[in-house]
């Protein structure tokens, strides 16, 4: 069965890059554009992993993470932060809330796969036959 990953980022560019990174694997990507949509998607889809941005409109990533960790049904879902913000206070606050990993933008797709692979088992799709 495919692993389900929820990508929460207000940038469509980042959501596309995340989708592209996991394309070679048996992964279903669910997308949300802010923390509020992200929480709703997490409750509905029960993803195996959440990849979460910090600065977003409507509800930011720190607020979403806080609410996620307060919800008994969702708090065990591993979260990888994917953000350009690497300031000390931000990192400490997020680490204390409980995240599995932290990836600072700019990032390489390989780095994201490596960190995701430490949280869930990623299985490669068979290579497409040459046309």
């Amino acid at each position: 069965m495919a692993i389900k990953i929820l990508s929460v980022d207000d940038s469509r560019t980042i959501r596309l890059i995340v989708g592209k990174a996991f394309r070679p694997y048996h992964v279903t990507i669910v997308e949300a554009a802010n923390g509020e949509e992200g929480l709703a998607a997490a409750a509905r889809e029960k993803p195996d992993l959440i990849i979460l941005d910090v600065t977003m409109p409507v509800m930011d990533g720190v607020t979403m993470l806080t609410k996620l960790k307060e919800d008994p049904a969702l708090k065990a879902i591993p979260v990888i932060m994917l953000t350009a913000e690497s300031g000390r206070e931000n990192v400490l606050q997020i680490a204390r809330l409980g995240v599995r990993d932290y990836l600072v933008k700019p990032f390489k797709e390989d780095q994201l796969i490596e960190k995701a692979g430490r949280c869930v088992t990623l299985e490669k799709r068979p290579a497409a036959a040459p046309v």
Partner: protein
Amino acid sequence: MPPPPDINQYKEIARRYGIAAAPESVSRLTQLVARQDSCVDDIVRVIEKDPGLSARLLRVANPRAADESEYTIGTVDEALLRNGIGCALLLAMGTPLSLALTKTFQTMLSLKLESVDLHQLDTLTGLHMLGSIGFAGKVAGHVYLRLSSASATAIAASILGLPPEELGTDEIRDAAGELLNIMTGNFKSNLCDAGLDCKLQPPQVGMTDDFSTPIEPGGGLERLAFRADKIEIFVEVSANPWSD
């Protein structure tokens, strides 16, 4: 004032997550500029230890020179004495942006972006893409990103791994906005770590033919230019580090 974050705890978490710190010289310079009573000698010592910072300061201090042979101001000490702490302010603001932009190109576009003198690039004319992000708090200002439509399209195509003809206006604008977001997020982290707490506003991206850049009251304006293959980028930062 909130207590300073636990440095040792941060270092342990940063090591575990593989988070790289900003260069020591940039952090130290930002901290010195953040204090209004810093002594010029302390600032000189920090800049002199970093060849990149020294070169940029001398470039800023000799605006009319075509190259180093035409410099009339040849030392860091002289540049700061003649131009004041404003020069250090420009370095402290521009350097993290420059580092973040070149790192983004190298990491996500596999392109080596070079910092070049403004006069080495063709001037943008007419309608072009302008992105801006405001930041407010102990330091206030805006970061601006200007580029031609052709450069914006090339960047979006490279980031997304798609042919340019498959890209719509929304994808191109979103990619430019994300580039600005990454650059400014790194910049903001450096400011916050130096004690200049601030928050970012959402990025705005659109087309314009207006080349005027508003300067933050009481602050300065730094203009930077970059080139990679056919891509040309102009970055401007206007900031007042003592806004509160």
